[in-house]
């Protein structure tokens, strides 16, 4: 096996004449938590489906866990699709065991592990309950457990947080981290930045079928300048003279504070000017932009509005 759990080069998918995915490259390091971010309709799900071999690409190549054909790695992969689906008449533990059996796990082992996983997730009481009697969130958790019951080397989750309440979102984050700690690679798509920011070692941002960014969360955030918040000791309009040109007063007119983008050369020269002019420093904070701002910057506000 190579160091990359997933690699894709120039993936293309056409739906009719429309290029839904247009030359996407991905390299997911083994053992990492990797996020695929993008607005609705960006091509995230189609990309994941091509990586898994559910649909065939119209161009490019991909490999999964070192296998050129994704099917050859299917027993070592766990998958939670965007559209959740379980057989309503199945019991929870049977549903989990069935999903394990599809990936080569013996039924008896699957049932035993299913009970353990359900208990660990706080759903031990529901092991013998039919899926149709579970709440939507519980059923979603059951499906997630079904995707990890065979202890896969690669876990692919398509929009795993959608439809979950905050408690279950937290459980899911814990489960993703636990899978990574077990040694698995986790690849998930989302358009909720907070999860990606907390979890991802690396991420790719896709928009309009193209990959717009690839790197760490810090790399993404580093694409935008930090924001400086400054409060002089003696407020006054003359403070602006010593500040960069983009400085704006904070809040309502007459407020004491100012904010401006971190100058490319750093904050030191600005501070020297302020002190020499006698404005003093009552408060100073440097706020790094979040992934959300970086995402909006990368994808473009117009593309986001079009997606919505």
């Amino acid at each position, binding site marked *: 096996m190579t160091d990359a759990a997933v690699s894709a080069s120039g993936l293309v998918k056409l739906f009719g004449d429309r290029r839904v995915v247009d*030359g996407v490259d991905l390299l997911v390091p083994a053992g990492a938590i990797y996020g695929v971010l993008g607005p609705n309709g960006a091509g995230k799900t189609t990309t994941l489906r091509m990586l898994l071999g559910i649909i065939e690409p119209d161009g490019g190549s991909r490999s999964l866990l070192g296998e050129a054909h994704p099917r050859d790695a299917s027993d070592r992969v766990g998958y939670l699709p965007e559209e959740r689906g379980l057989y309503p008449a199945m019991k929870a533990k049977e549903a989990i065991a069935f*999903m394990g059996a599809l990936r080569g796990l013996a039924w008896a082992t699957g049932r035993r592990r299913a009970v353990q996983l359900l208990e660990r997730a706080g759903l031990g009481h529901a092991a013998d309950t039919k899926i149709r009697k579970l709440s939507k969130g519980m059923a979603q958790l059951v499906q997630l457990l079904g995707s990890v019951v065979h202890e896969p080397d690669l876990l692919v989750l398509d929009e795993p947080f959608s439809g979950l309440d905050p408690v279950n979102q937290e459980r899911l984050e814990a489960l993703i981290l636990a899978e990574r700690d077990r040694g698995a690679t986790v690849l998930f798509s989302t358009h909720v930045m907070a999860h990606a920011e907390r979890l991802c070692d690396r991420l790719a941002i896709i928009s309009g079928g193209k990959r717009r960014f690839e790197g760490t969360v810090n790399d993404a955030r580093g694409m935008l300048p930090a924001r400086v918040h400054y409060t002089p000791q003696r407020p006054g309009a003359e403070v602006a003279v010593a500040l960069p040109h983009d400085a704006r007063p904070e809040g309502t007119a007459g407020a004491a504070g100012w904010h401006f983008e971190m100058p490319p050369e750093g904050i030191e020269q600005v501070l020297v000017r302020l002190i020499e002019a006698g404005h003093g420093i009552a408060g100073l904070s440097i706020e790094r932009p979040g992934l959300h701002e970086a995402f909006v910057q990368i994808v473009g506000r117009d593309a986001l509005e079009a997606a919505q």
Partner: protein
Amino acid sequence: MSRFRRTVRQTMTIARRDFVATVFTPIFLLFLFAPMIFGAIGGTVGGLSASSMAGNKDRARVVAIVAPEHARAMADADTRLRAVFRRDETPPLLTTLAPAADPAEQAREAFAAKDFEASAVLYGPLDRPIVLYSGLGSRTADYLGVLAGQTLAAEKLGSALPAVSVTKTRFTRPRGAAPNGRNPSAFFAVFGIFFLTLFLSGQVVGTMAEERSNKVVEVLAAAVPLESVFLGKLLGMFGVAVLFVAFWGTIVGNIGALMPPSLARELGSVAPATGTPAFGILFACYFTTAYLLLGSVFLGVGAQATTMREIQLLSLPITFGQMAMFGLSAAAVAQPDSWIATFAEVFPLSSPFAMAGRAANRAEIWPHLLAIGWQLLWVGLFITVGARLFRRGVLQSGSARPWWKRAPAS
């Protein structure tokens, strides 16, 4: 694990799920006992109809207006002739009436009699009788004509009527020596397989609909090749069909032990050309391939349907298709060496039926091995095409384009 072993394992996982999900439900009991339920309903309705018809039959008569001196001889001739008929084919009972002043008028009035229902009425001299008949009484009119002739012959010859003593000995025709190459078991084979597949293989039409409505199809498609999903579903439902056949086979087999010896002997004499054990094995093989062939077509077609209404609409053309294959195969076994027979044996959807008929008509085994291989090839083809259509239509994806059509990144 090799790709083949993994595929087999995945296929059997799907088959197991479908089998368990179908069999361990209360609805399955209804399905299993459906023949009994419908048989009971049919029997009750049929019994009521039969008793009503029997009442009518008890009152039906053939009437002969003959002089009293002929009546005795005619009754004797009627007794002799009646013995030739099967019970359900015997003519109505004979009633003789002495001629009135106007026998023609008397004959017409006989149809209006209140104590019996005349089917046909004979009057006039026995060597030139006139027979009136009503409705469907043409054959009973013929019978009265023959009866008149027999009566005259008996009267003329009297005690000189030669007594014939018949020795009846059962003869079993040598195996494979059926006249014109036709064997009665051929039609039984064709009908048997048709009957079983008619009931069972149509069930697979809607099985993919479950996955689509539950959105499980994406989970399956990610883990298992769609061809395995299709084959697994087919095998799962075939398991259900085998259970159904085994259940009813056991019941019918035990009822067979209670059947009258004459009927059992009659059935025992139906000897297929390949011999009973080989024929039994071939019948099972052809039932399997017929199920898989029709099932794979139905599964593939049904998988393209998007709603239950569309699936229900498909059942009519499917039944017509099955009827057409039955008709073609029945024609093939009736004309074993004709081009129809060859066509039916080669055409994949009729091949199992026609070849089962051939197993009854001809002793060679090798064409069957060839045919089973040919039929399984088509099962594979139908499943592949069905899965590809499903992938294209439902998963919104065609197969990978050939390299010369592959799209580069823009």
